[in-house]
C-alpha cells in the first residue's frame, strides 16, 4: 500500500497539490485521472521522491518515504519500477542493455543470468528480436514496452506508469494497458497509473482517483465512474461523444 497524506507541493506561488490525501492498493491498477496540467505527473514524482514535497507525508506500507535520505530511499527504490511519460530509455544502450541496467547495478548476476532475465522480461512484454537495437531504432510503442520490461526487471513491488499509452494507436494502447494489468495481478504489485485516456479507465480501472484543483476530488472504480453525479468528474468523463453514447 502506498499512501499520500496531506501532501502539498507548490512551484513558486503556483500551488499544484493542495493538502492531497490518497491511497493506492496492492494487486490493483490504481489510476490517477485528471485534466492536463492538473498535477498528475507532479503527484507521481512526489510519490517516488523525484520532487520534494512541501508538507505532508508519503508512506510505503508503514515506512515514511518522504523523510528519508537518498541512501535510505535507495532501499525502497529497488522495489520501485517506473515507466516515464517519454519512455526515458538510455540512448547509449541497446534494448537488452537497458533492461539489464538495474540488474548490473544492484545484483551480482553473471551476464548469462542477466540476459536470461532480460529476455524473460522482454518476452513478457511481447518484444522479441529487438535485443540488439538502440532506442532510436525502434517505434514509440516498442519503446514503451522496453521501458516496462526495464521497470519490471528487478521484480518491483511498486510500479508507476506515467501515461503508459499516450501517443499510441488504440490497439497498441490497449495491449499495453492489458499488459500492465496482467503483470500487476500476477505479481500482486501496487501499480499507480497516470492517464487521461477514458479507454484505459474503462478497461483496467480497478481503483480510480480523480485529481482536480490539487485535491482528490472523487474516488471509485470503473463501474461507478459512469454513474457518478459529481459535476466536475462528469465534465471530464463525458467530454467526448463516445463516452456520452456509452452512458
Amino acid at each position: 500500500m502506498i499512501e499520500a497524506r496531506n501532501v502539498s507541493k507548490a512551484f513558486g506561488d503556483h500551488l499544484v497539490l493542495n493538502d492531497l490525501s490518497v491511497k493506492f492498493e496492492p494487486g490493483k491498477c490504481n489510476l490517477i485521472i485528471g485534466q492536463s496540467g492538473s498535477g498528475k505527473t507532479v503527484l507521481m514524482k512526489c510519490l517516488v521522491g523525484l520532487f520534494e514535497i512541501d508538507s505532508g507525508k508519503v508512506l510505503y506500507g508503514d515506512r515514511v518515504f518522504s523523510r528519508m535520505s537518498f541512501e535510505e530511499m535507495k532501499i525502497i527504490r529497488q522495489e520501485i519500477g517506473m515507466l516515464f511519460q517519454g519512455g526515458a530509455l538510455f540512448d547509449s544502450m541497446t534494448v537488452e542493455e537497458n533492461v539489464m541496467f538495474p540488474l548490473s547495478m544492484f545484483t551480482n548476476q553473471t551476464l548469462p543470468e542477466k540476459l536470461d532475465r532480460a529476455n524473460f522480461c522482454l518476452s513478457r512484454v511481447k518484444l522479441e528480436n529487438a535485443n540488439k537495437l538502440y532506442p532510436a531504432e525502434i517505434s514509440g510503442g516498442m519503446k514503451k514496452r522496453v521501458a516496462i520490461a526495464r521497470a519490471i526487471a528487478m521484480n518491483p513491488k511498486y510500479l508507476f506508469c506515467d501515461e503508459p499509452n499516450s501517443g499510441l494507436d488504440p490497439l497498441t494502447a490497449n495491449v499495453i494497458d492489458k499488459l500492465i494489468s496482467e503483470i500487476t495481478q500476477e505479481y500482486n504489485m501496487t501499480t499507480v497509473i497516470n492517464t487521461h485516456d477514458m479507454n484505459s479507465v474503462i478497461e483496467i480501472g480497478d481503483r480510480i482517483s480523480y485529481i482536480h484543483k490539487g485535491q482528490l476530488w472523487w474516488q471509485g472504480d470503473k463501474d461507478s465512474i459512469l454513474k457518478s453525479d459529481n459535476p466536475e468528474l462528469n465534465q471530464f468523463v463525458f467530454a467526448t461523444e463516445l463516452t456520452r453514447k456509452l452512458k
Partner: protein
Amino acid sequence: MIKSFLFHIGRYILLMRQVFKKPEKQSIYIRQIMVEIENLGLDSVGIVAFISTFMGAVLCIQMAFNIDTPLIPLYTIGFVTRQSVVLEFSPTIISLILAGKVGSRVASELGTMRVTEQIDAIEIIGINPATYLIFPKVIAAVLINPILIMMSMILAVFGGWLAGVLTGLVSSSVYVYGIKAFFESYDIFYAMVKTVVFAFLIVSISGYHGFYTKGGALEVGASSTKGVVHSSIAIIVFNLILTKLLLA
C-alpha cells in the same frame, strides 16, 4: 547578477559533493571510465595533433622573423618555441579548444538525458545520477588530458622543427640545440598542474550545466553554450591564479 553567480557557485559545489560520493559498484565505474576515456580523449587526438603541429610551425616562423639581429643566437628560435609551447600554448590554448569540444559534448549529453527524463530514470533505479554520470567523465578527463597535452607539446615542437628546417630559417641541429637549452622540469610540472585543473573545470562545469538543464531541445543547446563559455572563462581565470601561485 551577483545573486545568480553565488547561486550557481553554491549549487555547483553541492553537485560536486554528490559526484565524489562513494560509487555504488566499482566494476561498473571502471568500465564507464574506459568508455569516457575513449569518448572524451581518444576522440580528440586528431584535432589536438592537427592544431598543435600547425601552431608549432607558426610559432617557429614568427620567432625566426623577430630575430633580425646577429646578437641573438639562432638557437633562441628553438628555445623560445619550446618555452611558449610548454608554458602556455599546449596547456592553456589546447585546453580551451578541448573546452569547446569536450565541454559541449558533456553538457549536451547530460542536458538531453535530463530533458528526456533519463536522469530521473537513473535516480528511480536507486543510483545517484550525479556520481554515475559525472564522476567517470571527470576522472577520464583528468587522466587523459595530460597525455593529450604531452602529445601536443611534442607535436608542436616537431611542427616548429619542420617549418624551421623546410623554410631554411634555422638548421636542424641549431633548432634541436635550442629546444634542449635551459630545460627546467619544473616547467613541465607547472604545465601538468594547469592541465589537470583545466580538465577538471571543463568537465565539471559543463557537466553542471547539462545536469541542471530545464525544458527541451532549445535549452539543451543553451546549456551546451553555457558549458563551453563558463568553462573557458574558468580556464582563463585559473590560468592567471595558477601562474601567480606556481611561477611568481
